[in-house]
């Protein structure tokens, strides 16, 4: 909820508080309301912390990937250097342009790089679902069966059926 009219808790500071710092020490929660300047002076950057964590992680993974995927995304022109600085992809195509890097990064963040949720059926499935995508799904299904991961295999089979049905409509 808004704290628009709350003043900074620091002594002699009348600025409007925009950072709420809560610390849990020995199971005791205490909250301080600080303006941005006082928060930074105390070495606290809660508004930036989650962003920074992502940027740091991206930077680490990009550096670890070496020169495997240099260059720029064909669609938006984003480079791995841009990616390191912002922690953001430039466009959907970046995930394909930097596929190895994306896969590695997603594994680090989510513990997985394979989507098992709902499969999107676009307005124009024929144009959207390429033969290569179907072949990829088929290959993953085979791998799942080989690994006797039947739960995963069932999900992949449903995905293939869903896409097949969408294409034939």
């Amino acid at each position, binding site marked *: *909820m*808004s*704290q*628009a*009219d*709350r003043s900074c808790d620091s002594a002699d500071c009348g600025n409007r508080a925009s*950072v*709420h*710092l*809560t610390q*849990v020490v*020995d*199971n005791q*929660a205490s*909250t301080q*309301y600080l303006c941005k300047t006082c928060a930074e002076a105390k070495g606290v950057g*809660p*508004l*930036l*912390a*989650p*962003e920074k964590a*992502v940027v740091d992680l*991206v930077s680490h993974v990009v550096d670890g990937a070496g020169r495997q995927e240099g260059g720029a995304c064909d*669609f*938006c022109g*984003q480079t791995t250097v841009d990616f390191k600085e*912002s*922690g*953001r*992809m*430039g*466009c*959907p195509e970046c*995930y*394909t342009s930097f596929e190895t890097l*994306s*896969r590695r*990064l*997603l594994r680090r*963040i*989510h*513990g*997985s*790089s*394979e*989507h*098992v*949720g*709902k499969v*999107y*059926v*676009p*307005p*124009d499935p024929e144009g*959207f679902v390429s033969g290569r*995508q179907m072949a*990829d*799904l088929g290959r993953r299904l085979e791998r799942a069966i080989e690994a006797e991961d039947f739960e995963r295999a069932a999900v992949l089979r449903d*995905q293939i059926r869903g896409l097949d049905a969408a294409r034939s409509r």
Partner: protein
Amino acid sequence: MTDPEAVGGLGLRWLEADGPDADIVLSTRVRLARNLQGHRFASRTDMDERRRICDGVARLVDSSSLPGGARLLAMEGLEAHSRRILLERRLVSHDLVGRVDGAEPAAGAALLAWPDAPVSAMVNEEDHLRLQCLVSGLSAVDAWSLVDRLDVGLGSELPLAFHHDFGYLTSCPTNAGTGLRASALVHLPALVLTKEIGRVLEGLDRLGLTHRGVEGEGSRFTGNFFQLSNQTTLGRSEEDLIEHFGRTVDSVVEKEREARQVLLNAGPRMEDLIWRAYGLLRHARLLDYRDLSELLSGVRLGVSLGVLKAPAIGSLNRMMVFAQAAHLDEAAGRALSAEERRCHRAEYVRAALRDPGEASTSDAAL
């Protein structure tokens, strides 16, 4: 002050407190991050591209694929005051309305909303579309079902960015896959009083849930209100994520109820806290919002335990929303000074506690 046609009763459905465990879980939100195929993400879009994205959504407002009565509010076309109202109702983010005070919102930033439904979508935020459903109580399954319907409707008209391995593609890789973030706003005073809160929050972290302040990412908590949400979005199905989230939050609710009983049986300390909070709210002449949050925490606890017979939980929810700065300005019909606002806030709360119907009467102006 606000154009009532523009903002009206948007985003207020959860206040009714008619969901499961609504005394402890104020609201549940399920959010889906979606992007349009063939467009750059927000960090690389220019003004023209953002406008084209928004125009694409505007063309769907009367489409049969979406529920009827949709309204698209362009942030550029709204007064700063109206944008703050939407912010206080948690319908838009700071990023959508402009994070710095006085900054104008970016071109193409908009809110797609329905006056009669708890679903909405931010357009041109970090992702092209941020769909959300905000409901009362611990109702993750219901919220997911409603937002999924909106997702299917939008996705049947607008080609979304989707990768066969990575799922829905998002500007930040932390949202890729399902793009699903479920969050619950929970009130945990007894876990704080019994000093169990640190252990519980650490346990949640191990179970894949993170905690934040009421205002979401980057904010912190006040008045014993915490926002819990899932950390990862890829590698599990939407149903699995929702089920795990609901089960985990439910276990926190149980722990909070157990802690309340322990405190209630341990002497008059908790009853004293409840009655002191009630007394202060009933008689204070000046109130900061932070003070209000902390005192409402005590009163909410009292109502939940039956120590206080009134007001209803729904009235307490309304106070949390309508005693915020922009809502007080709205009720006064002008921009109040900080001191005036503290005074109006105290007056509003006294009236609401004197007559539980008052909280809804005062905000009827909206």
